[in-house]
């Protein structure tokens, strides 16, 4: 039933998923990890991703959408190449998290959950990312940056932009 012949994922990820569905007592328990891995590979959870995952887990597309829409870290639209996630939870807030967020907005010219016209950066305001001791903190893709100041943010963003030009 759940055999997927033409996977939209890379062979490595498809093979990993083949195994993942076997490790839980209930197949559908693999749903959230699968959504996260797919998002990392494809960039977002596309319709094609929803359909393939549903098929792999014997779920309706609708079930996948229900779970997907519950979690704010899963997205259904492409993010920028560098997804900037700024924490404004309590420790960060006390140490200027909102200034950092506002600075990012101004500098990138975009709002929460938006992407720059060139597709380079997207911005998100997020809850605690577990870096409270060095607040304020932000995460770009999976890289942490902390003890931020507006100036430091500029340097970091410049660096990403430069890296892309290389």
């Amino acid at each position, binding site marked *: 039933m759940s055999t997927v012949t033409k996977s939209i994922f890379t062979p490595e990820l498809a093979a990993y998923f083949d195994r993942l569905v076997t490790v839980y007592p209930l197949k559908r328990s693999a749903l959230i990890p699968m959504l996260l891995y797919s998002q990392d590979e494809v960039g977002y959870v596309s*319709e094609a991703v929803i359909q393939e995952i549903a098929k792999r887990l014997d779920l*309706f*597309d*609708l*079930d996948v*959408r*229900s779970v997907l*829409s*519950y979690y704010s870290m899963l997205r259904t639209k492409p993010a920028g190449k560098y997804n900037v996630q700024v924490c404004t939870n309590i420790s960060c807030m006390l140490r200027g998290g909102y200034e950092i967020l506002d600075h990012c907005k101004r500098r990138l010219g975009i709002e929460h959950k938006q992407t720059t016209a060139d597709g380079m950066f997207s911005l998100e305001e997020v809850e605690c990312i577990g870096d409270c001791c060095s607040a304020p903190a932000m995460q770009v893709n999976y890289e942490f940056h902390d003890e931020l100041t507006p100036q430091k943010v500029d340097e970091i963003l410049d660096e990403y932009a430069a890296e892309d030009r290389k």
Partner: protein
Amino acid sequence: MADVTITVDGKKITAPAGTLLIEVCKTAGIEIPAFCYYPGLSLQAACRMCVVRQEKVPKLQTACTTQIAEGQVFFTDTPEVVQARKATLQLLLGNHPLDCPVCDAGGECELQDMTFKYGAADSFYAEPKNHREEQKWSPVVYFDRPRCILCYRCVRVCGEGMDVFALAVENRGSSSIIVPNVPAQLAPDNLAQLDCEQCGMCIDICPVGALTSGTYRYKTRPWEMNHVATVCTHCGDGCKTTLGVRSTSDGSQIVRGDNRDKSGINGDFLCNKGRYAFDFANNSERITQPLVRQPNGELKPVSWEEALTYVGTKFAELLNTHGGRSFGVIGGNRLTNEEAYLLQKFARSVLHTNNIDHHRTADYAAFAQSLAGTAGRGASLRDTLIAKAVLLVGGDPTNQNPATAWNLRSNVRHNGARLYIANITEIKLRRQARAFLHVAEYGYGALAEYLAGDDSTSSSVTPDSAALASFRDALRSEESLLILIGNELRGAELKRLIDFGLTIPGAKFALLADYANSRGAADMGLLPDLLPGYTHIGPIDTADPASRIALEYHSPTSPGLDLLEIFDAATVGNLSALYVAGANPVARYDVDPATLKNTFIVVQDMFLTETAVLADVVLPAANLYEKSGCVSNSYGDLQQVKKAADRAGVRSDFEMIVRIADKMGADVRKLVPFGPGSNSEGISADMGQTRGAESGEADRHAVWLTANNLEPRLSPFDPSAMLDEIQRLVPGYKLLRLQLLSGNDQHLSPAAVPIRDDAGLVQISNRRDLVLPANDTLFTSGSLTRYSASLNDLQQNQLRQPIIQIDNKTVVD
């Protein structure tokens, strides 16, 4: 489980341990409000309306999930509990539009009732409300998001109850919403859609006005309607339905069908046809005046008197000149039992012919003959809800008998019933089956043989002999078995399967047919070779009770022509008259109109069907929602039909038959024994005097009639006069009048008199096409389909959008 005793509000209550507190309280008459709890569905505990205080427990408990145990003490009505409920309501109303004055649910809304009771109209929340436009998810399902209180009843009834899973929740917290399964981005017009069975159960179960029905919304207010409990006209399941009717300038119109009256055999259920497809009655093509063909070939509207006089005179004349043998009479599957009985009695006693038949959608003759001489072997639709093991051979209940499918799913879910399915296609119900056997085409006969022990037929059933063997082993290990049979099985095949079933001591049977009264039509003797109650036609023997009917009718003692033979007779010029009441045989059996050009044709129908356009006289008929009487569903459950709607100009088939007989000069009193003391040749509309032991029942009936200011059958148009005779003469129809009149169902078993010689049911085995299942799908209902706007919309809707979620076998042919 063992009984335990708990205390609720100081009252000691005893109930089995583990019962839900909310149910215990309901039984004890203590009301606990609930939005998300719904009996028969999984527990959600989402709304917090049912909270109660339990002694020694720190927090308020939800009564809908609390299982009772010995010695517990609860308080359901303390100020603390009331305050908690009020707070819940205030939260719910925080974003509720409170548009009750225009909301469909206004007046029958659970949220309104609770707000009224707890007085929570004033709110602490001053934020602007979050408005969303209403969405049309299908021609029949609309969603008003702001009214939704997120009780998840719709999600559960669609998934668990319907096995469709077309609704779900998206997002979380205060932005949670109910969504349909086709998201906007995938829908043809970029608006979210439902790809589902369109049953409307979600609308029915919604405690507020968030889900509304396309056919009812903004049409009326609940208190402006009359509510009439009657029986659905569509399939053979015969669901009890409550019709909401409203007066119009030319009668009264049905605006809503639902199952408010959950007392019926269908419990909670109605399918899309029962819920929406009553609109055929209002189709602009409906005929409301009798039409008579003029010398120039046109059908011209005339008065009733003129039309009936013409039919009566012409029938009498043809009877004189050509004899009863030259008449053909065809009855319908949506006539009441009284009408079907009257029609065949008219044919047999006035027209002196046995040339009478109907469009048979299942072989009830063979079914009754196979069960002749047994007792208690007929199953009721109610059995599908409780049987421990069920075998379904053939059929596709999801499409053709939706209430049966609903009941079977409920039974599997609630009682762990073991469902065994043998079918030539992968019908949707296989998802609930313990074992599904994929039978080869034409393999049902072989299957019956194999089940009965003949291993040699194995390969004709399926190539998978191991699966077949284990299927049979499983069946053999059952002590009792409910055997549901699709209408593909007829004649000898059907008999073989029943013979096998009869070897299981507790087995019960039902044969699934297509229309509201297909079973009744056969039971009432709309058959050329069988009198009512499947009584054999043959030489009269005054000592044999089986001759009683023929004796009273003075009917011919040899079988007549069946439906196909009637048209064969027309082809060779031997049919002088054809009388059709509520059937469309020309379309059904693809009859060449040219063969009927020398036949005088009278058709009683609502529309100019393929048959009616050929007629010399067309009489506008009332439909099943516009008359009274009773019908028998596929299972033989007898239920009362009550007149709900009305249309100026039309007459019931009952009245038309009587009036034609009258115009022919027949003795109407003999046909319909009416009036006090009517006594001709032993036929008497008695009040029970002649029925001995049953007279108590009938006397109660008389008392009831008097108490309700009703005259006991004083008119020849009173179907209950006919019912008296049915009760007196038709084997198997020993019904309980009070049960019927109180709107309850009762199960009647077929009571075929065992065949006296081997004449048997020859034509069924020779001419299989005599039984022609309608094979209706979810969105069709025989000839009515094209006149029902809602069924047409639903078909279009289904064609328009890709069927993504639902196995397309369930919805499309």
